[in-house]
């Protein structure tokens, strides 16, 4: 019977069957498989992952992989959580129903967090997008990790106006209120700055910033800001 239930359409019956006969390891693997293949409904994927995790915890077998499998499930659940935390108006903005979302890929989540659809985006959203980078599949050919990273930071810059304020006596001080530098601060606290922050020339060459990069005031503020970051990092060393 176990063999027959292994077919794709009957996987659902399979985990029910495994639990009934007390084979929690078997149920764990069947559920993990179902979760992996679930791309239509986010909430369904979440429950499959949760059940799979519980089945692993219930397992009495001597399968050494279970602890690792739970780690993988937690990573997946973290991704689900990031999608659930998207503001509902942002989700609606791209034509999805917040209560009935399909499963988004990490790069799609990143895009939504820093897109125009996320109208109230702030440094926390940019930080979430950066956190999501570790979920991105680096072996995916259609995807360039550094381009994606550059895109996030470029979007952070575009969330503020960089116009010169003639009444501002200390323009560099105004950097503190910019989403970009607030994000730098958050990333710094997590200790990921060296890995995540692109070099200034790379950032300035971002195609999305082509217009802005021509403005002397913007260049001045960015150079000043990067200088401050550098000296802070040196002080710590």
């Amino acid at each position, binding site marked *: 019977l176990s063999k027959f239930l292994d077919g794709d359409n009957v996987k*659902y019956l399979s985990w029910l069957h495994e639990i009934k006969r007390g084979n929690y390891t078997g149920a764990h693997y069947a559920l993990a498989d179902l979760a992996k293949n679930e791309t239509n409904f986010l909430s369904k994927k979440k429950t499959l*992952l949760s059940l799979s995790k*519980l089945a692993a*915890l*219930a397992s009495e077998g001597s399968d050494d992989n279970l602890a690792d499998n739970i780690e993988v499930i937690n990573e997946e659940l973290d991704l689900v959580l990031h999608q659930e935390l998207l503001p509902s108006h942002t989700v609606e903005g791209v034509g999805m129903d917040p209560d009935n979302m399909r499963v988004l890929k990490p790069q799609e989540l990143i895009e939504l967090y820093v897109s125009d659809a996320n109208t109230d985006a702030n440094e926390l959203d940019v930080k979430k997008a950066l956190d999501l980078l570790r979920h991105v599949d680096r072996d995916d050919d259609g995807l360039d990790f550094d381009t994606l990273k550059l895109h996030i930071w470029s979007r952070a810059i575009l969330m503020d106006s960089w116009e010169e304020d003639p009444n501002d006596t200390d323009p560099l001080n105004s950097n503190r209120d910019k989403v970009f530098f607030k994000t730098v601060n958050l990333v710094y606290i997590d200790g990921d700055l060296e890995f995540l922050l692109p070099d200034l020339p790379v950032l300035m060459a971002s195609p999305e910033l082509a217009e802005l990069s021509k403005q002397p005031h913007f260049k001045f503020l960015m150079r000043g800001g990067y200088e401050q970051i550098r000296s802070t990092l040196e002080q710590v060393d």
Partner: protein
Amino acid sequence: LASDLVITEADKARINAIDWLVFDEAHRSEALKQANAIMRSFIVVKKHAAARQVFEKLPSDTIDVIYRQWHHKTGTGELPPSDSNAIREYLCMKAYLDAVESFNDWFSLFHKGQPAKPSAVEGKASFTDRVAFEHKMKQYNIEKERWMHNLLTQTKTTRDRIYNVLLFADGGWLTDTVEDPEAEEPRQHQMNQLRKLHLPGLCLNLHTVLHSSGLYPEAVQIADVVASELHRLYQNFDKESVQHLLAMISKSSACLLDENKDPLGKLEGK
């Protein structure tokens, strides 16, 4: 299930001891800590009615009084760790007792409140007998509907109250949020024991309530809450209780399959 045992004379003496501590407002912080300790000892043996009596001994302004006394004594609004932890514990106790009582109400409504179906008329019944039977059936259907309605209301109240305990804000049920260097070891140990003893049981009760009321999708979703890393409820489960919970949830999933619905109760296409 939540059993309620007899309150002995010795129990009564401990409950009434709190009276001595609430006379003077200056002792209120001590009264709260003693009451918490007695409630812990009752709850561990499932003497919920006794724990409720202890709870009722503390005047409802207790938290205010403790803040006022402390402010009076030191001029600051920030309570010492032992006091803020005691207040949090008191609120945890309240959430727990509310949940248990709500579950008990649900339980008696479900098992005793259900109207009895009138027995069918046997053989060749007279016209009047059949009319009487039809009338009784009509009456029964009205009562049954009313009962179903009440049951659903009670189910939702109980569900919300159990979730209040399971998802107790800011770190979970019966955990301290402020580190107390002078914390007493036995208290920590007891709170830990109570979490392991009661949280899995409450999850199972929650499942019983939802499943028996036919709310299968919600019954399946308990898995999400227990497995979540935000609350880490699963850490309070031993293998046996996880197995039990999974067996229960798989029953709800099987019921959904029987109804030709998605086995996890999710929306299908839109």
